[in-house]
C-alpha cells in the first residue's frame, strides 16, 4: 500500500492507501471531507471537482497517489475562515443552488473558470465553460447569474497557479 502525503485545505495529511483509492475516496473516506460528491461513474457530472495546485480536476478520475505532494483545496477549504469566498456568496445571493448536490463542484469549477478566463465573463462563455458540470435542479439560469456576479467579485484574483508563476 503506497503512502500518500499532500496538503488538503492547508493541512498536511498522510495515509497508507490502496493504489486503487481515488482522490475523491481519499477525501471523503479517509479525511471525512464529504463536501466533494460523486454523481456519476463516467467523469461527466463534475460533482467531484476540487483544485489541485490551483487547477480544477475531477477527483473521481484521479488516483490519490497522482497528487502526491500537491496542494489540494476542496469546497470545505474555499472560505477564508468564517468569510465565505465571493463565489460561494454569489451562489447564495443568486439562488444558484437547489438540492445542493452539484454545488460544491459547480463552485470549485466556477472559481477556476475565473482564474482561467478572467473576471469579466459573458453568458456564452460561462455556459460553455460549464460543460463539465451537470445540474438537474436549476436549469443553470441562476448558476450562470451567480458565476457572472461571483466572477466580478473575484476581480484581481488570478489564482495560485498564475500567481506562483509570476
Amino acid at each position, binding site marked *: 500500500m*503506497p503512502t500518500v502525503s499532500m496538503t488538503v485545505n492547508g493541512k498536511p495529511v498522510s495515509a497508507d492507501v*490502496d*493504489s*486503487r483509492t*481515488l482522490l475523491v475516496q481519499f477525501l471523503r473516506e479517509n479525511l471525512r471531507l464529504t463536501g466533494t460528491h460523486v454523481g456519476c*461513474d*463516467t*467523469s*461527466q457530472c*463534475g460533482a467531484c*471537482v476540487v483544485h489541485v495546485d490551483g*487547477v*480544477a*480536476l*475531477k477527483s*473521481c*478520475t*484521479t*488516483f490519490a*497517489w*497522482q497528487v502526491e505532494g500537491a496542494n489540494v483545496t476542496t469546497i470545505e477549504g474555499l472560505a477564508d475562515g468564517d468569510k465565505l469566498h465571493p463565489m460561494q456568496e454569489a451562489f447564495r445571493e443568486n439562488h444558484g443552488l437547489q438540492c445542493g448536490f452539484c454545488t460544491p463542484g459547480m463552485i470549485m*469549477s466556477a472559481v*477556476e*473558470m475565473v482564474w*482561467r478566463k478572467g473576471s469579466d465573463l459573458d453568458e456564452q462563455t460561462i455556459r460553455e*465553460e460549464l*460543460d*463539465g*458540470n451537470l445540474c438537474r435542479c436549476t436549469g443553470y439560469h441562476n448558476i450562470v447569474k451567480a458565476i457572472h456576479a461571483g466572477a466580478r467579485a473575484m476581480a484581481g484574483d488570478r489564482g495560485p497557479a498564475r500567481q506562483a508563476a509570476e
Partner: protein
Amino acid sequence: MYAFEVHRPTTVRQAVNLLAKNPEAKLLAGGHSLVPVMKMRLASPSALIDLSKVEGLSGIEVGSRSVTIGAMTRHRDVARSPELHQAMPALASVPDSIGDPHVRNRGTIGGSIANNDPNADYPAACLGLGATIITNKRKIPADEYFQGMFDTALEPDEIITKVSFPIAKKAGYEKFKHPASGFALVGVFVSKRGSEIRVAVTGAGANGVFRATAFEEALKKRFHPKSLDGVTLLPDLMNSDIHAGKDYRAHLVGVMARRALAKAVAG
C-alpha cells in the same frame, strides 16, 4: 476496480523497461479514458506506469516549418499556447474542443493519440496535417499510425514521446459534438500545405479516423468550400448509433468539411 501496481518512472527508458517487464501494464497519462473503464472493471491492467514524472515529455516547440508537442502536454496548455495560436490556430483550436475544462486540465495529446478513440479529436488533426508520431523507437507517419478504432501502429513496448505537425498555411477544424458525451460525432480537419491537401474525418467512420480522399481530390482544383458541392461520402462507410444514422453522419461530414474549409481559407 481491480488491484494494480503503481510505477512512477522518471525517464522514458525506465518507462519502456517497465512496459517490457509488465506486458499487462498500461501507461497512464491524463487518465480520463483509462480510469473510467478501470472503475467499471472493463480494463484490468496489472500495473499503471505513470508518465507524469518522466522528464522531457511535455512542452510545445514552434519552429519555422513544424510544431512539436510533447506527448504529456495537457490539452489546456496546447489550447493556451500563444506561439501555437500564432503559428497554426487551427491546431490550437483542437484541444479546446475536447471534453470539458476538467478533462482539458488533465488530458494529454499522447494519451489521446495512443488510445485512438474513434470519436477523438486529435487523431483528425494528426491525419489532417500529416503529422509524425515520434516514439522512443521511431518516427511514424500519421497515415501509417492510425489503424482502425482503438488500434495503432504502436508496438507493446513503444511510448509516444512527441508529435510533430508540419505547419500548414491553410488549415481548419470543425466539430459536431455528440449530444451526450461531447466527443466528436463528426469532426473534420482540413489542410493545404503546398500542393498537399488533406481532409481527415473523425467520429463518423465505421472504423475510426480516415482521410476523405474524394474530398481531397475535389479540392485539388480549388481549395474552397464550393469545390465540395455535389461531392458526398458514401453513407455505408459511416458509423451509426442512436444519436446519428449513417445518412446524417455522411451529410455532416460534408457540412463540417465545408465549415472547416471556410475557416481555413479565411484564416
